[in-house]
């Protein structure tokens, strides 16, 4: 059971918005940060700040230890077999772009296939669109089932021997669907393709074990898992990363530099050109410590409970439609919905006036909006600091919104 006191670690949540105590239900966009993470950043800059991997002075060593220490925490967090497989980057988007531009350019040729799904975030669509255009490859979409899930039959039908890359979101940022990425990875491998997992919405909420999933690449962002913005991770199997060329060149990533040719550092540093995101990595390390303290299994359980409670309460509102799997066990703490005649922007504005923060729009998933046959939706997303009282406030707010728009109409 996650204690209600968890919320007290998040100073931002202790404030009034438009005259009401804040209810933050937009963690799928970005999560809030606990004092432990804020202090880790502050202490790094107050006491340890220096550039890493160079110089002999004490601060340089301290900063390097902290930065590489964070890498070790990430490695354990996702159960990678070595720190060489952990590349620090700006976020999920940069990580997927690196795979597309490095592995993709080297391995995808004319007529080859890249397979994704209808429920991808734009960051797991556009890098592949660009790669497909550049290489003359074919981008294929796996169709969704009516309840917003993916069936392995559709996956088997889409992946062929011409498929070089399969890329799939682990947890949908719109539908909350948890996808069978382990089984999909197996199908990809049987056909000689590599499996890329967009883990942006999964890493904050589920225990990740990349060896057990047997995916080839796994990308996620720090800011969605109580860490700072600007830091993310690409996990890649060592054998694949070894054969890949960097896409950013400059300081920090080189071994020997000649006038006309240079060589690269070992893994993972060859992909980390320029002064790295040191403070961000330190903050991510603190975020991982915080999540581990509570336990990812507990967090996942809490989110299923939140999803179940929210779906039960929200379905009591006349004219409210919830998208995605009806079974809360099949989804993370994300509930996307529409309130019949009221546009989601109007819903979000009315909720904001009651101190409730939700997202409204297309959630960076335009193809999925098309599949749902809507132009926009509203989304409430829950995290470890939310409780049932937040759902109650949301439901109350939605009822007022409905009433308000019934009156003005």
């Amino acid at each position, binding site marked *: 059971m996650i204690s209600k006191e968890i919320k007290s670690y998040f100073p931002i949540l202790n404030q009034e918005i*438009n005259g009401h105590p804040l209810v933050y239900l937009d963690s799928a966009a970005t999560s809030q940060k606990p004092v432990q993470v804020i202090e880790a950043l502050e202490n790094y800059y107050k006491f340890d700040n220096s550039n890493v991997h160079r110089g002999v002075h004490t601060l340089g060593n301290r900063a390097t230890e902290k930065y590489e220490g964070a890498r070790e925490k990430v490695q354990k967090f996702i159960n990678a077999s070595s720190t060489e497989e952990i590349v620090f980057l700006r976020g999920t988007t940069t990580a997927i772009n690196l795979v597309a531009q490095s592995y993709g350019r080297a391995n995808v040729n004319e007529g080859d296939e890249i397979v994704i799904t209808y429920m991808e975030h734009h960051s797991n669509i556009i890098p592949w669109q660009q790669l497909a255009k550049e290489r003359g490859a074919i981008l294929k979409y796996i169709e969704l089932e009516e309840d917003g899930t993916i069936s392995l039959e559709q996956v088997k039908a889409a992946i062929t021997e011409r498929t070089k890359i399969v890329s799939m979101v682990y947890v949908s940022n719109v539908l909350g669907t948890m996808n069978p990425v382990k089984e999909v990875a197996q199908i990809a491998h049987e056909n000689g393709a590599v499996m890329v997992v967009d883990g942006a919405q999964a890493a904050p909420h589920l225990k990740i074990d990349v060896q057990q999933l047997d995916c080839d690449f796994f990308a996620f962002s720090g800011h969605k898992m109580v860490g700072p913005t600007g830091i993310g991770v690409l996990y890649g199997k060592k054998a694949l990363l070894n054969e890949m060329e960097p896409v950013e060149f400059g300081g920090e990533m080189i071994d020997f530099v000649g006038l006309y040719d240079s060589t690269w550092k070992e893994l993972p540093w060859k992909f980390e050109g320029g002064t790295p995101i040191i403070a961000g990595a330190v903050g991510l390390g603190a975020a991982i410590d915080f999540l581990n303290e509570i336990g990812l299994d507990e967090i996942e359980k809490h989110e299923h409970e939140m999803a179940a409670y929210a779906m039960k309460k929200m379905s009591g509102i006349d004219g409210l439609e919830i998208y995605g799997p009806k079974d809360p066990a099949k989804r993370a703490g994300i509930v996307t919905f529409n309130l019949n005649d009221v*546009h*989601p*922007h*109007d819903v979000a*504005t*009315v909720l904001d*006036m*009651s101190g409730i923060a939700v997202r*409204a*729009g*297309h959630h960076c998933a*335009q193809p999925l*909006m098309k599949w749902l046959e809507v*132009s*926009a939706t509203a989304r409430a997303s829950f995290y470890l600091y939310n409780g049932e009282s937040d759902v109650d406030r949301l439901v*109350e707010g939605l009822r*007022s919104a409905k009433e*308000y728009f019934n009156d*003005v*109409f």
Partner: protein
Amino acid sequence: MSFNNLDQLYRSVIMDHYKTPRNKGTIENDSINIEMNNPTCGDRIHLTLQVEDGIVKDAKFDGEGCSISMASASMMTQAVKGKDVDTALGLSKTFSDMMLGKEYDDSVDLGDIEALQGVSQFPARIKCATLAWKAMEKGVHEQEKS
């Protein structure tokens, strides 16, 4: 729960335009045909104008979006119809200034559009209100170029 501040945003004249939009549809013999969307939220407008001798003879819009964007589109078509192009662009400038909370030319008769003034207090919604006007401006400028 009381929503006094919301009433500044959702004025009855706005809701009236949203519920029964004026000039909804497309013009067949259009001279300006432009589509524009708000990439951050998915609002979309398709605007057709018939301009003859520098006068906006007809204006229609189609699309999807929130109450503010659709009401504003309805009001915009109403406002520019029958006006010469320069006056229409002038109205757009006045409207934009009003939205950004700048001083604006209050000698201009804005009619129903005045009701949108409350939107300027809701920064996240200003783009909703200006979408149709931006489309009109872009359409006119593109036509001038060709």
